[in-house]
């Protein structure tokens, strides 16, 4: 059985999806051998935990590439193994129906089936999540947010749902709510370095988008972002995303901080004051040199430095080049 279907890359590119779904015929063929009645089938079955993970991933990548027939066969295998009442399989079936629905009427029917299931059993979390996803997909962002908040009321330790809520708020431009949701994720998983970096990114975006507001507030949000990026670097050595964010944030913060007079920014009680200018300058220097090192050694493919995303390296190099140009002028 293919290894890359057991645990595929987190973000599947279209070409990878094609590659994955092309394996469908042979995997489906290998499964449809003879099967004995129940007690005997226990002796002959060769299924492992990975078998069903493979089917699930295959189903999703077939749906992505539009291969509905193969997806249907994967789903049938899952249905015959786990039955129609299994929550996870129910959600996968719902996803299949969403994908093959051609118009809004059919999508509405899928939505009604979700609601019927939830009326019977409101604790069916996979279906509740599908319902939120479908609402979002249909453009009803407000309804999706309300449904998700309700879900989180019932299950406040679901980090995936908090992260989704943060993304929903972020797309609506509600940055402080998005930051709050991501902080909830960090309460559940305090060491997730990518969430720290994401928090820094959202704080940075919120600081740059609200140009009109007073400098003090901008500096405060930016220094929050700076701290988030620092934490993500602390948790993950040579983290390109963290250093990139640290560099642009430090640069922006140097503009926002008042020169000379220390403590000119009034802080409301309980907040940490923004870091002194010298510290920010030092952080900027460190980030620049580290980024240069990562770009140099990462694109040369040195041992221990491989495994950086090509696009990310190019973006980092562009940032460094832009910086150099300014110095020369």
């Amino acid at each position, binding site marked *: 059985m293919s290894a890359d279907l057991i645990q595929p890359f987190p973000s599947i590119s279209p070409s990878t999806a094609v590659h994955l779904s092309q394996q469908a015929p042979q995997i489906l063929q290998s499964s449809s051998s003879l099967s004995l009645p129940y007690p005997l089938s226990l002796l002959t079955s060769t299924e492992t935990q990975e078998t069903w993970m493979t089917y699930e991933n295959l189903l999703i990548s077939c749906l992505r590439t*539009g291969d509905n027939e193969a997806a249907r066969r994967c789903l049938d295998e899952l249905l015959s193994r786990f039955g129609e009442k299994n929550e996870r399989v129910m959600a996968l079936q719902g996803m299949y129906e969403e994908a093959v629905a051609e118009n809004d009427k059919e999508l509405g029917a899928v939505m009604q089936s979700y609601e019927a299931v939830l009326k019977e059993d409101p604790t069916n979390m996979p279906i509740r999540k599908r319902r939120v*996803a479908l609402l979002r997909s249909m453009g009803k962002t407000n309804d999706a947010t309300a449904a998700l908040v309700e879900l989180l009321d019932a299950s406040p330790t679901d980090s995936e749902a908090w992260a989704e809520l943060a993304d929903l708020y972020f797309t609506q431009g509600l940055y402080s709510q998005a930051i709050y949701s991501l902080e909830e994720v960090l309460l559940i998983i305090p060491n997730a370095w990518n969430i720290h970096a994401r928090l820094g990114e959202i704080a940075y975006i919120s600081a740059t988008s609200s140009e009109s507001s007073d400098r003090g507030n901008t500096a405060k949000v930016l220094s929050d972002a700076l701290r988030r990026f620092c934490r993500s670097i602390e948790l993950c*050595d040579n983290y390109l995303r963290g250093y990139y964010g640290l560099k642009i944030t430090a640069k922006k913060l140097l503009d926002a901080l008042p020169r000379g007079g220390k403590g000119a920014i009034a802080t409301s009680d309980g907040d940490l004051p923004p870091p002194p200018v010298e510290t920010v300058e030092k952080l900027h220097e460190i980030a620049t040199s580290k980024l240069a090192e990562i770009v140099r050694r990462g694109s040369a493919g040195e041992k221990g430095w491989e495994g950086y995303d090509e696009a990310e390296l190019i973006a980092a190099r562009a940032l460094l080049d832009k910086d150099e140009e300014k110095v020369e002028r």
Partner: protein
Amino acid sequence: MGLLSNSLNLTGVIFLTHAVYSAYEHSLLTSSSSSSSSSGEITSLPLDITIETLLSLLVLCTGIVIGAPSLRPIQWAVWASSVEKEDHVSLEQRRALVEEKVRAGGTVGNPFAVLDQRNGFLDIRAKRREFADWVREGGAAK
């Protein structure tokens, strides 16, 4: 590394078996000879069998230690850095990693990447549109 550890283990097992068998034979020999001479004294093992036992054990231990999988980093940041990179390697490398680590009951790549990806909330219709656009732009020709 695999070959070296396997050959060391094999050598160690052969010599250990030989030493044990020699000791057994020796004990038979002394017991039969001692019964004829009717003296209850316990004779010690010859020096060469003792040395063979110890050496074979040493070889066996070395082989097992060499054959052990590489240790995982104990510092969070170092470990995080190594798993972060596993998400951006080539397809072949990824396949090898999955073979090696998932079969051993582990996971590959950043375990927190699910928070960026959120499969439970996957918007399958958007993904299908994205894929169709990619095909239209001639991505399949690659």
